[in-house]
């Protein structure tokens, strides 16, 4: 078997790369959640997101169906990536512990 430290360091490099990529991808994706507000019998598209402690709502104007889908997909992708980033960071934490442990043993 390959040296354990070598495998762990390789995985550390990969996870650091992944963390960087997820952060960059998340930055380019829309945040918040998309809702339709019904006002006087008409539906208006709004984006709700957090700004510090406040929840802000932004009217999106006359969005085409395609743009609505793009926005909705982008928000979903962001949430997915945020979950993955959390996992990557947990894996990094575990891995660093393992590397420290192996180094002490050697």
């Amino acid at each position, binding site marked *: *078997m*390959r040296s354990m430290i070598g495998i762990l360091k390789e995985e550390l490099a990969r996870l650091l790369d992944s963390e960087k990529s997820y952060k960059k*991808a998340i930055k380019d994706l829309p945040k918040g959640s998309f809702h339709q507000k019904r006002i006087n019998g008409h539906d208006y598209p709004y984006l709700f997101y957090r700004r510090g402690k406040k929840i802000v709502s932004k009217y999106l104007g006359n969005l085409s169906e395609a743009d609505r889908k793009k926005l909705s997909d982008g928000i979903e992708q962001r949430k997915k990536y945020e979950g993955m980033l959390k996992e990557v960071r947990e894996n990094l934490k575990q891995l660093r512990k393992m590397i420290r442990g192996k180094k002490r043993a050697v």
Partner: protein
Amino acid sequence: MAKNEQFEVLVQILRRFHNAGVLNEFFLIGSWCLYFYRFHFDQPQGLPAFRTLDVDFLVPNAKQVKKEVDVSQLLKDEGFVPTFNRSSGLIKYNHPELQVEFLVPELGKGRDEPVAIESLHINAQSLRYLNLLMDYPRIIAYEEIKIRVPEPAAFAIHKLMISARRGNQEKQKADLETSIGLLEFLYARPEEVARIKAVLRAIPKSWKKTILSLSGKHFSRLKDTAENL
């Protein structure tokens, strides 16, 4: 990072490719083949263990892929993030559990920059000796999906050959261990020895020379087989 979790992520990707109608455009190569060989052999005890987070997909006929499927988006839908290597231009797909990379067989003198496979919205690195894997497909059924992998004999011989080209000593050692471990397993099965002979009969002379030299150092039974075809 348990292997089962990684396997579940991999199976999800394979299901996505299958549902999109493109799984047949890919060969699963690399060490994950060893995991799928377990579903092929009645008694898989003795198959070498492996440890890898890399999933390598070979696209044997990149220029002939007619169906347009955004494979990059399929991977993103499973939580993979594209990671762009500035120096090589290659895009790999990272996930907390795995990393996916696409490969194509190297043609002619080879090229440093990756090959764009536009119909699948991915790019791929070209590597030598991949024909050795492509020419010996085996289909392994797992639940509703059928995965193309190289035959174990071709996989073992390929691993032996590429071990000599590794710059990294640890990876070289890993390739040799995998190759020798798998050859030990295959030599206990007469039908697989027949496949080893079939592969050795068909490979180019220059490759055979490499195999004789490497097997002489690391696995003499293969050298004997190659010399007495």
